């Protein structure tokens, strides 16, 4: 997903304006000229400047060769033309979101195993390797992080494991 200069510039400009306007709500440090608002305002100014430069570049280019076909606001990069590529990215993101939502209830081992199996199969790993890598990977992570590093990974519906 590639934004052209017009699109990227407009998005950044909008963000900069919102950022700058919102930072006026921060209270000043009593008795001082500068407070919490200064730094966000400088950032808003800088980002706004970058955005305006992008917009100017895009406008100049359009003026320099008017008959040339315009690049679309959002264009697809090379990899997205491969069938299933976009779906794979969204699936990966979706799996992490599901982990965030349900891992406490289901538990670490089951949820991470599910993510691994789905991703391995998505990348066409044969079933035998999928199951072996999932088993070794999830149990190793559980052992290292829960048992050695004492990270309280959620058990969920599984009983406490012997290690």
């Amino acid at each position, binding site marked *: 997903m590639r934004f052209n200069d017009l699109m990227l510039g407009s998005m950044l400009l909008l963000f900069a304006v919102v950022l700058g306007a919102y930072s006026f709500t*921060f209270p000043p440090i009593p008795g001082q000229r500068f407070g919490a608002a200064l730094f966000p305002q400088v*950032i808003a100014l800088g*980002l706004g400047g970058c955005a305006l430069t992008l917009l100017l570049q895009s406008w100049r280019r359009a003026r320099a060769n008017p008959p040339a076909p315009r690049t679309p606001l959002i264009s697809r990069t090379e990899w997205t033309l491969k069938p*299933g590529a976009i779906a794979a990215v969204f699936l990966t993101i979706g799996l992490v979101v599901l982990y965030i939502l349900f891992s406490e209830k289901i538990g670490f081992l089951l949820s991470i195993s599910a993510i691994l199996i789905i991703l391995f199969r998505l990348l066409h790993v044969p079933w035998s390797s999928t199951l072996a890598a999932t088993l070794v990977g999830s149990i190793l992570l559980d052992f290292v992080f829960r048992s050695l590093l004492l*990270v309280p990974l959620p058990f969920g519906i599984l009983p406490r494991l012997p290690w």
Partner: protein
Amino acid sequence: MDVLTQASALVFQWQVFVAIIAAAGFGLLVGAIPGLTATMATALLVPFAFFMDPVPAVGMMVTCAAMAIFAGDIPGILLRIPGTPASAAYASEGYAMTQQGRAEEALGASLLFSAIGGLFGTFVLIFAAPTLAEIALNFSSAEYFWMALLGLTCAVFIGASSPLKGMISLFIGLFVATIGLNNPAGVPRFTFGSSDLLAGVDFIPAMIGLFAVSVVLSTVAAGAPPWESPQKKTGNVFHAWGGLLRRYWPQQLRGNLLGTVVGALPGAGADIAAWIAYAVSRRFSRTPEKYGTGHVEGIVECTSSNNAAVSSAWIPAFVFGIPGDTITAIVIGVLYVKGLNPGPTLFIFNPETIYAVFLIFILANLVMVPLGWLLIKSATRMIQAPRRILMPLILAFCIVGAYASNNSVYGIVIMLVFGVLGFIMEENDIPIAPCILGIVLGPIVEARFISGMIRGDGSLLYFFERPIAAGLGLFVIAIWLLSLVGWLRRRKRRLAAAGTQDGSEASA
């Protein structure tokens, strides 16, 4: 001497050795796999560093980074896919040698001169850092403000192919740094009622997201295809060492010096050092026409410089607490967590720790030779490591690592947000490194500016009152002005060229 004995006692323990060897293996593996960077290797080690003593924790990250920068040369030479950005400058050169069946010569040169470069940078670090720390003890807000600003400037003007995109990335990072309570006024900014965000954006999950999750996403999208190298077997890598050293010691020395200087600048790291070294090497070579056709001279100079830069990047990190590159930015975060506040006082209150870390630097560059040899031997198999099995495992590792940073799913949320952000930024050719430096340096710039204004009673002249501050300030402003003038000149030339083209078209 007493400090050295204490430092040795901290280093020569089996736990430290195990940590160093394990981190070395991990760094070599990650560096050798194309697409996985040295920064990513360091970021993935952070969750472990949390649970370790300061010396093994920092030693582990130092070793891992040095190994990954060397190992990045291997896929660069064998496949023309640089393992880390620091190897990008000479990947084509090395690949041309591989195509001629001279991979072992290129790999041998890379191993030898990486180790020497790392040691050179380390010795400069050992001798320069304590002296600089004494000077830095007298620094006030003004000097730190300019140092941090210099870091931000280097990140934008030298680091990115397009300064505009570098600047956008930097401002994104600076914005992220403003989130939370951690500002001179103690006002919650951009938290929107979330108590998690009050403490600011957790640095470690953000790193893991930007550097690891974004790579997983783009590899999954590409379907993780395997690679093939034209040369299947590598011969004796030590064979050419004597000849290379005799013939190319001036290039090596020049690369070492250049790398050390570039690395020691805040904000500029190994990748920039390698690019400059390649250009310098070609400019001063007696046989510039051979560059690009598989000439080992350029590789010698670049690999000498990037590893020297990896070591010297620690000078600003330890002495001023200002990161030299993305790797040191991550380790500075870890130092704070470990209660070792980077800065000149580190050399006064914990000299044994800092000398222990220096000893580890030397050890790391020494073990690089045998471990690097093993890696090169198995490299042709290693780079074909099935990415389709690796990537899901890396994602699982990221999830656990982000969770471990504060034992809540909030870390994973941050990781995912930054993973997607990094992915979109890379899609649009916006470099990630300036964003990281913005996140780390933002709070320093802000705090030092505000406290400077309070001390100077609201007068900007405060930042120029002391001689070092004035010098640094003028230096930073000069870089800005020179960049602006250069840009205007290029633009004028471009417009003039376009004008003559139009004119000739009209007359035709």
